[in-house]
């Protein structure tokens, strides 16, 4: 079946829904999502959305932009960060005006809390900048945007997995999508296609990410020759629930929670004397791993799956249950621990991809030399780049709201003058063929490949990295991609074939694992979340540049792109 729209938005998280709301003002718009609405992972974001409203402390967008740049270890494109911080303020008011139930100050304004790396006056002290709705801010953003989409009659294709993107030269022509209910491959012809498919933390064993976070957008684009930017920068959030990786919001530390090692020491005093537990995430994750490796983890055996404690019990029951009620619920459910009474066992968890599909400040997919007309990306799958080498807490929600909206507005304008591009006559046949092949013969289950990929990426492309281990990871991922060719489905049904979907997702994760590992091996310095034991220093002379990685079959070739440092000169990063 072939459908024709002005714009197709792939993904129904915050970026996709915001873009759909804007684009649908002028464009016939379809949202194509592999999940039912409101199941997207934006809904798992907890602690808040940063915006310099100044409701609690004096604040300014300029400080927010600076913190973003410094937090990203100067790999951030600075004009993009300025836009992020400036437009965040109006974006938060817009969301509130559309009903978002923010928590309130005593005088009835949007309440704000402290978060890692957010400071007043260029680093003096932590600032209350994160606007929040208890500890389910992302869920409230997702719900509010979906509510508005209902109000504005946006057209949804639920449980459609996009499997191919069609380009006519450097212009987008449409996408093909696998309908879960029927197994049919649909072709969507569109003047504009936007990818908002979120992250790909499922390549790691311990992750805060949903099962659905398999990097479908970046992987599809990589396979048609579009490079991926800064894929070596993957954020490990310091506080995941031990063994499971479920996120414990940084808001816990924003409200006064403290990290302690087996000796009860507040070890962040040694790593970030000014911001302490509210240092940026890369630094806190490294501090935890250093404590663990040096034997001061709770178990004390120095192995990387050891953990530390996050203590919020001194905050009092009332604060815990008013400010972080979902965290209390998670801890009781999964750990049998009530955070109002006992500390929470935590370890770093793979959380957020700073890298992704390269875009400009209007969400247009581009490299230094090429703009792909009609092709857009926003949110976690994109790389503007506003997060550089390490994203600050709250800035993921800021990114998807600000840049989702900008991309949507650009699309609304673009489709007015653009024509449809030519779709290949056999569009969709390759995907149909592919699925038929998966069903044709017998082969191994995908489970063991999933496990080996996640183990390898966790152990060798983790918080601390070194050459030999990364080389092993690259070799192992190449091997897994070979073995993947043998995988077949056991399920021959057309309807609700989750197994086909799972295998297509695994393919995407394997491709992105390879790009990530090769990009990490290539960058011989330490910057932000990319921390190498064999190259422990930041090297601005050689490495103040973005990586662009091209996937060609089993090879990855690397190019570079300049960083915009037009506002602040890079400086050593201390907190």
């Amino acid at each position, binding site marked *: 079946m072939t459908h024709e729209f002005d714009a197709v938005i792939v993904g129904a998280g915050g970026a996709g829904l915001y873009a759909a709301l804007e684009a649908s003002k002028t464009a016939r718009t379809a949202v194509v999502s592999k999940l039912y609405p409101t*199941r997207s992972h934006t809904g*798992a974001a907890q602690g808040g959305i940063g915006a310099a409203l100044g409701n609690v402390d004096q604040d300014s967008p300029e400080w927010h932009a600076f913190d973003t740049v410094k937090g990203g270890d100067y790999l951030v494109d600075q004009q993009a960060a300025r836009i992020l911080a400036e437009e965040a303020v109006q974006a938060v008011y817009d969301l509130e005006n559309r*009903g978002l139930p923010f928590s309130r100050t005593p005088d009835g304004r949007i309440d704000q809390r402290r978060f890692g790396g957010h400071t007043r006056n260029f680093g003096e002290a932590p600032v209350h900048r994160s606007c929040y709705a208890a500890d389910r801010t992302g869920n409230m953003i997702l719900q509010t945007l979906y509510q508005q989409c209902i109000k504005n009659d946006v057209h949804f294709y639920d449980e459609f997995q996009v499997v191919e993107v069609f380009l006519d030269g450097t212009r987008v022509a449409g996408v093909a999508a696998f309908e879960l209910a029927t197994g049919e491959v649909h072709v969507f012809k569109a003047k504009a296609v936007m990818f908002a498919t979120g992250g790909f933390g499922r390549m790691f064993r311990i992750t805060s990410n949903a099962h659905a976070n398999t990097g479908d957008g970046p992987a599809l684009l990589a396979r048609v020759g579009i490079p991926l930017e800064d894929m070596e920068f993957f954020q490990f959030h310091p506080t995941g629930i031990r063994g499971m990786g479920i*996120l414990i919001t940084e808001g816990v530390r924003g409200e006064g929670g403290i990290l302690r090692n087996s000796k009860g020491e507040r070890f962040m005093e040694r790593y970030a004397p000014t911001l302490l537990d509210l240092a940026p995430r890369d630094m806190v994750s490294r501090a935890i791993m250093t404590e663990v490796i040096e034997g001061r983890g709770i178990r004390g055996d120095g192995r990387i799956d050891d953990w530390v404690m996050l203590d919020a019990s001194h905050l009092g029951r009332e604060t815990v249950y008013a400010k972080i009620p979902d965290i209390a619920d998670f801890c009781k459910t999964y750990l049998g621990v009530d955070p109002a009474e006992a500390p929470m066992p935590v370890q770093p968890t793979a959380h957020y991809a700073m890298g992704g599909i390269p875009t400009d400040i209007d969400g247009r997919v581009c490299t230094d030399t090429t703009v792909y007309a009609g092709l857009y990306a926003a949110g976690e799958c994109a790389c503007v780049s506003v997060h550089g080498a390490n994203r600050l807490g709250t800035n993921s929600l800021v990114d998807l709201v600000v840049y989702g909206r900008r991309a949507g507005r650009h699309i609304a304008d673009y489709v007015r003058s653009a024509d449809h591009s030519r779709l290949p006559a056999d569009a969709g046949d390759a995907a149909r063929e592919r699925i038929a092949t998966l069903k044709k013969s017998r082969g191994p289950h995908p489970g063991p490949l999933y496990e080996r990929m996640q183990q390898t990426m966790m152990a060798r492309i983790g918080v601390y990295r070194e050459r030999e281990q990364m080389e092993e990871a690259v070799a192992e991922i190449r091997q897994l991609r070979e073995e993947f060719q043998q995988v077949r489905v056991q*399920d021959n049904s057309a309807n609700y074939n989750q197994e086909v979907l799972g295998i297509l997702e695994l393919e995407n994760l394997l491709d992105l694992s390879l790009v990530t590992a090769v990009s990490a091996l290539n960058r011989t310095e330490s910057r932000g979340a990319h921390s190498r034991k064999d190259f422990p220093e930041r090297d601005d002379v050689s490495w103040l540049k973005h990586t662009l990685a091209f996937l060609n079959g089993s090879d990855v070739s690397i190019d570079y792109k300049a960083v915009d440092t037009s506002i602040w000169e890079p400086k050593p990063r201390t907190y």
Partner: protein
Amino acid sequence: MQIALEIQRFNPETNTESEFQTFNVTVEPTDRILDALMEISRNQDGTLVFRKSCAHGVCGSDAMRINGTERLACKTLVQDVADADGATVRIEPLRHLPIQRDLMVDQSVFFRKFRSVKPYFVAGSEIGEREYLQSQADRAVFDDATKCINCSACYSACPVLQKNPDFLGPAAIVQAARFVFDSRDKGLEARLDVLDSPDGVWPCENHFECTRVCPREIKITKLINLTKREIKKYREARGEATAEHKEAN
């Protein structure tokens, strides 16, 4: 430990009736039931289908009946439902919604009812330059209702839906309450044609099953009763009758 999952299977392409199939899985007591299901689908039987996403109880994808009670598979630990090695855990799809295949149910009706209550903000006054002001007390009034994740657990557990499939159902009323009790929203009137109809809020008989199974611990029955009271208050102020005792068309 080892447990047996006794799972209800049905595929309309190949079956005329559902049947139970038993899978043995090795698990930790602290694993989620979802982990056990994933183990089966990835390593034992690729034809077993169910929905999943966030894996920690916030996206609402994996509601199902576990030992007869509506729960999220990702928020239920093995030790919550299996007390000893070799224990059997029975897994069934939600009730009151058509089965698509195995543990997947068609939520179209559920979402149609959800949309019918106009689950979006209806501004009460002109938007200012900044935010609407709202006191902490006013914000607290509807906090519980904001926690709903549309998982349909309550819809499956509701005894009223068993006899009256046209009842609006608990979740849609929670969504309505989310806005009706928001001091910034002035959309009660626009929602009355659905809420104050014979199949709207009134069929609820206070069985409290919805409250008991809600994985977000929302006091659903209480919200339904508060909504009923708000509608009565509105009608009384205008000298009008509610639809409480009217017959459905």
